[in-house]
């Protein structure tokens, strides 16, 4: 009886489990197909096989990257750890700005163009393909003497458009507001202005050409307010909460935090058309090791790639 019952149950159970597994597998295949590639699990080699390029592409051991200065820190880290993992590979990185990077790729002077803004239509039309490798959130910073812990979106817009000229007006101490921003054309600046809906309306007291310069200026100037990416934040400045949501990685991942921009690596054509070294580089970035690297750089790992 017992045996029968067990014997009778087992086939059914097995079948059900099997069908659930099958369903899950199909779902996984479909979703991964839709997303382009599953990230974050497995080694670079597994991923490389799934991309299927290694034997197709010509053997080459160099990767030339050019582009965004706001991606500088991440690009350097990625290049170094990639070369640690594959000592036979050489990665060179130039920091010429997003537009120059995309231009270099399309002109064949670089293999990968780093861009902290999305591709323009014209660039897409010329064959540039964007791959979101990480997400970078923008922190709003003040000098350490500033006692305001959080700003609403309206207050932040007011500060940058010039309608709030003294911190007193929004509950701070009697210090003039010094608005610090990036130069026209900077990816961080356009992301910041667009996310706040104040594009071209900002009145900057200082327009600086690197995130490091913004940090230094804000840290040294009482009453200053600036914006930089999470990656380069340190405790020389205070990062403010926006609408009460702290500038923290978890809040970006959940989508609660307003200000973030993508880190994009651009190739001329799809990944599987690239040479071996470039495919290997992307496989590395999309592996578990790559995700760890991205987190270590203070960036956020995108859930999927499209």
């Amino acid at each position, binding site marked *: 009886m017992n045996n029968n019952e067990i014997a009778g149950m087992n086939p059914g159970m097995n079948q059900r489990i099997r069908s659930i597994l099958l369903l899950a597998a199909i779902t996984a295949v479909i979703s991964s197909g839709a997303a382009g590639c599953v990230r974050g699990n497995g080694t670079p080699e597994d991923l490389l096989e799934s991309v299927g390029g290694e034997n197709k592409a010509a053997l080459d051991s160099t990767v030339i990257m050019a582009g965004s200065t706001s991606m500088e820190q991440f690009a350097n880290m990625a290049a170094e750890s990639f070369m640690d993992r594959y000592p036979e590979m050489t990665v060179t990185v130039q920091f010429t700005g997003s537009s120059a990077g995309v231009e270099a790729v399309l002109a064949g002077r670089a293999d990968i163009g780093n861009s902290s803004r999305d591709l323009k239509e014209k660039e897409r039309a010329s064959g540039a393909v964007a791959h979101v490798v990480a997400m970078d959130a923008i922190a709003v910073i003040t000098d350490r003497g500033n006692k305001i812990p959080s700003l609403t979106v309206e207050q932040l817009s007011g500060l940058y458009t010039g309608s709030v000229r003294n911190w007193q007006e929004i509950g701070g101490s009697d210090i003039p507001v010094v608005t610090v921003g990036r130069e026209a054309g900077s990816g961080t600046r356009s992301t910041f202005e667009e996310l706040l809906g104040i594009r*071209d309306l900002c009145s900057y007291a200082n327009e600086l*050409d690197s995130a490091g310069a913004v940090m*230094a200026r804000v840290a040294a*100037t009482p009453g200053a307010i600036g914006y930089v990416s999470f990656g380069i934040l340190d405790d020389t400045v205070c990062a403010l909460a926006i609408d009460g949501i702290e500038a923290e990685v978890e809040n970006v991942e959940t989508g609660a935090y307003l200000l973030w921009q993508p880190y994009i690596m651009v190739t001329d054509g799809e990944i599987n058309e690239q040479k071996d070294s470039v495919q290997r580089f992307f496989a590395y970035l999309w592996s578990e090791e790559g995700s760890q690297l991205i987190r270590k750089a203070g960036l956020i790992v995108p859930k999927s790639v499209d």
Partner: protein
Amino acid sequence: MDVSLQQFYQEMKASGQSLRPRISVRIVEAAAQAVFTVCAFASLLAVVSITLYMIANGIPAIWQIGVKEILFSALWKPVSEEPSFGILYIILSSVTGTFLAVLLGVPVALLTAVFLAEIAPKRLAAAVRPAVELLAGIPSVVYGLLGLMVLNPVMYRWEQRLFKGSQTHQFTGGANLLSAVFVLAAMILPTVISISESALRAVPEQLKASSMALGASHIQTIFRVAIPAARPGIVTAVVLGVGRALGEAMAVNMVSGGSVNLPLPFHSVRFLTTAIVSEMGYAEGLHRQVLFTVGMILFLFIMLVNMLLHAILRRGDG
């Protein structure tokens, strides 16, 4: 000796060799001349190609946007929906900043030169001169760094005192035209000092001696005789200083704030040089082309300064 020399000539004649240099020597001579010519042409080629390149890249934007809209409009919004590329304020900032820096730096430099050439005891001059030379060797980024760390905070304090309670002034945190002027004034010092000093030293001793003999004091002699006599050299020094100030980018970029504004002392400003330096990285399309136009205008300014210099030098020769 004479005998052996004669012998040598006779031997040469006998062997039918001429007294002309040997062929190998002639080849070396010709090769050397070719090398010199090529080197001379290299710099000529560089100047010509740079000029052509700047014009070829600077002109298209002017055609596309219009001279009036670029040169005489003050609205610089290169990446907005309806972009505007007016660089009037940028040109004015460069001109004003350079002018004020020269106004501030030249008197100090000239008096230093007088001190070194005429007044200082030999030992003291020997101590000051290397210091001035060292000043010339300091990289501009160091000037900028000092300006950023020392000058800007001081400026901010002045700014807060001057514009206390102002509802219209945009506070810059001390990064303003005045900071740039101070830094540039310091940067042109060594150039102006050393060239003025050489000019003063080149004034003939008899001129000064005659002046003294007529009863003029040392100081009167310096201001009435030595400086007028050294004028061409001093003007050259000033013009070179103008060129240096006009072309400086790094230090200015670090201390001037970098927003495009009317060049008033406590406004954050952008110079021709810093417009290129800070925006070229991310610029594309028309924005990029206009930056080339900015470069061309800067280039024209520098050429103008150089032509002025040549005119002065030629007049000095005559």
